């Protein structure tokens, strides 16, 4: 293991670590554009120059592996001078249209220029003009003028997705990023090129012009789009509600987690948050068609649960619920002795398919958690019992049973046969329209909780915005039912419910919110995970 000195501090790193990473570990930032830890090394931007003792000239830190006894200086006058010159080169043809650029505020050209810029430009000639506002695909917009040709996006399409849509065309200062003829940037990971673009050349068409980035608050969260549970950051706009047509969630950005998704997320998850601010959101409890106070609806539900024998009550939980919710539900079913509990509902045709990298066919974030916490049940059998008139109270969480992979006519028959159909969910759907009692649930960005991904990794997500109307997290809703039934609820915070879950369900034993942390923790007995190998890095399949 090489031991080297950077700016007077010593560090020992694994062989093969480059100087940028070694410096990062010491808290020293070496400015760079083209280097990305998830991609191959290009050495395009020449900004990461550092001085190494006993070498005549500064060398690029991204392509210099740490060697034993190396003495590196990142702040010498020569290095600073070089950065200034490189910034001048990068900005020669840059249009400086920061006022209209969506990247402004999180742009590495801006950041490094403030640190190392040559504030008095020497460029007198007319700048080279290139195409602006060119849509590359459904999600990405290109502004070729702003591009500094770091080639991160090109390498991403070559090495991560393996689709190779992008290339650099032209020579000299006329080179520009572009699509190969006849291609569109349409792969399921295209949104990532926006994240890795250090400047405003690639911007997100969905996010474009909606909110300025400095108005956004960020919260660490988990993508609820599929069973993978990619780590994301939720960017919400609370400061300027008139922007973005009142959408509170502005965008999702991937959050690095080596064990799950590395640096990437797929477009299905990235753009899959529309339901949160959709007009179909359920804000208040409903009884029949009339909006009622939440307490009144809860009392009506309590009444129905008390009036019927456990054999007449069935609950269809959802794999979209968090572990805490499912545990509270388990408490309720144990208290009342309800046996008819299930959570899995087959998706309607065409059934969603997995892709070759992160996206899973199971589009629910917590199927593994539901399998672990709830007893195995058969949703189809519950519906059959309802159709036969044996179920008087059916409580459905989140699912739209009429849009499931069952015969809609038979399902409708079953739902209409039930005396009290209770629906609790975040958004209205065909099932909630049939329900006699509707209870609002908080969406995943409005509450704390944990999901268990398909490999058994328990990961926390956090509240980013306030719940709409009277919506509650499901554990809270269930806790308010448990109190009158004589069972003290575990507490007024998701964390307390999780603590009780950990003491009750053996697979969760020993886990706490602290031990889960930002990276997640494995269920007892589940082997540790790593992020899957990107398709672009795999050996090609034999022809």
């Amino acid at each position, binding site marked *: 293991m090489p031991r080297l000195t950077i700016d007077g501090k010593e560090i020992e790193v694994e062989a093969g670590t480059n100087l940028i990473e070694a410096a990062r570990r010491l808290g020293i930032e070496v400015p760079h554009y083209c280097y990305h830890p998830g991609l191959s090394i290009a050495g395009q931007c020449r900004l990461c120059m550092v001085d190494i003792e006993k070498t005549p000239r500064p060398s690029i830190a991204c392509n210099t592996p740490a060697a034993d006894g190396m003495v590196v200086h990142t702040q010498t006058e020569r290095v600073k001078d070089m950065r200034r010159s490189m910034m001048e080169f990068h900005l020669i043809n840059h249009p400086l249209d920061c006022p209209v650029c969506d990247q402004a505020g999180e742009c590495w050209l801006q950041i490094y220029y403030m640190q190392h810029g040559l504030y008095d430009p020497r460029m007198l000639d007319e700048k080279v003009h290139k195409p602006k506002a060119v849509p590359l695909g459904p999600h990405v917009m290109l502004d070729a003028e702003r591009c500094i040709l770091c080639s991160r996006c090109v390498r991403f399409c070559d090495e991560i997705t393996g689709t190779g849509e992008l290339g650099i065309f032209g020579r000299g200062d006329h080179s520009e990023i572009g699509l190969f003829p006849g291609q569109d940037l349409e792969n399921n990971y295209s949104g990532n090129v926006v994240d890795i673009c250090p400047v405003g050349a690639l911007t997100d068409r969905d996010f474009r012009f909606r909110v*300025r980035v400095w108005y956004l608050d960020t919260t660490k969260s988990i993508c609820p789009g599929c069973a993978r549970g990619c780590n994301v950051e939720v960017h919400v706009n609370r400061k300027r509600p*008139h*922007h973005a047509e009142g959408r509170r969630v502005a965008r999702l950005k991937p959050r690095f987690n080596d064990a799950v998704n590395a640096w990437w997320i797929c477009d299905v998850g990235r753009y899959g948050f529309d339901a949160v601010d959709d007009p179909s959101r359920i804000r208040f409890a409903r009884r029949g068609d009339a909006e009622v106070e939440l307490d009144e609806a809860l009392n009506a539900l309590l009444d129905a649960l008390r009036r019927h024998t456990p054999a007449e009550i069935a609950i269809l939980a959802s794999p979209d619920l968090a572990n805490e919710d499912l545990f509270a539900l388990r408490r309720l079913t144990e208290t009342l002795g309800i046996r008819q509990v299930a959570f899995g509902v087959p998706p309607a045709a065409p059934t969603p398919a997995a892709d070759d990298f992160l996206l899973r066919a199971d589009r629910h974030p917590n199927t593994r958690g539901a399998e672990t916490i709830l007893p195995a049940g058969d949703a189809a059998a519950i519906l059959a019992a309802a159709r036969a008139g044996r179920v008087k109270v059916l409580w459905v969480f989140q699912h739209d049973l009429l849009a499931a992979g069952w015969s809609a006519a038979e399902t409708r028959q079953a739902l209409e046969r039930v005396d009290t159909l209770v629906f609790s969910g975040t958004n209205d759907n065909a099932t909630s329209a049939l329900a006699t009692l509707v209870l609002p649930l908080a969406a995943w960005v409005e509450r704390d909780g944990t999901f268990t991904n398909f490999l058994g990794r328990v990961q926390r997500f956090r509240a980013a915005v306030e719940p709409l109307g009277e919506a509650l997290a499901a554990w809270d809703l269930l806790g308010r039912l448990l109190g009158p039934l004589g069972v003290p609820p575990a507490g007024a915070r998701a964390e307390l419910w999780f603590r009780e879950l950990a003491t009750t369900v053996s697979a969760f034993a020993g886990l706490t919110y602290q031990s889960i942390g930002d990276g997640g923790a494995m269920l007892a007995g589940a082997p540790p995970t790593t992020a899957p190998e990107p398709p672009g890095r795999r050996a090609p399949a034999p022809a």
Partner: protein
Amino acid sequence: MKTGQRFYLREVLAGLVLTGHHFFANMGKHIAHALGRKDARGAVTIQYPEERRPYSPRLRSLHRLVRREDGSPRCVACMMCETVCPARCIYIVADEHPNPEIEKMPSRFDIDLGKCVFCGFCVEACPEDAIRMDTGILEFSSYSRLGMIYTKEMLLALEPAGPDGVPRSPVPIPADRTV
């Protein structure tokens, strides 16, 4: 207080003498001025609003949005003014401009003058010189809060004040004002 000031009648008479002196002196000066003695200047009443005091050229008056040659706003909805505004009285919603060279424009640009503190930061922050406070208009009262909100169209229609500081556009009268 001096002893003499304790006598009521004496003080009242002294006051009358002072007022009377100013009254007759001013009357004489105004008559002289009216008869052609232009150097005779008495105390002046300015006949506002027909007449106005000269304002400083640096006066910060009602905002206006500067237009391009085609009449569209010069504003590119960069949100600098909205960000810098200490009163948070600017509401901008951005939209795509059909011309990719311009790219961005405001679909909505409202200033709530009921909140505005006339600090002029928006003018200083603007990178496009698209907002100015040089209309010379100071009269924008309203009977309702809604009447204090000036929309993009209202702000675009305003002209800068003339060289004498007199407003060149009519004072925008909110719809709710009848007098």
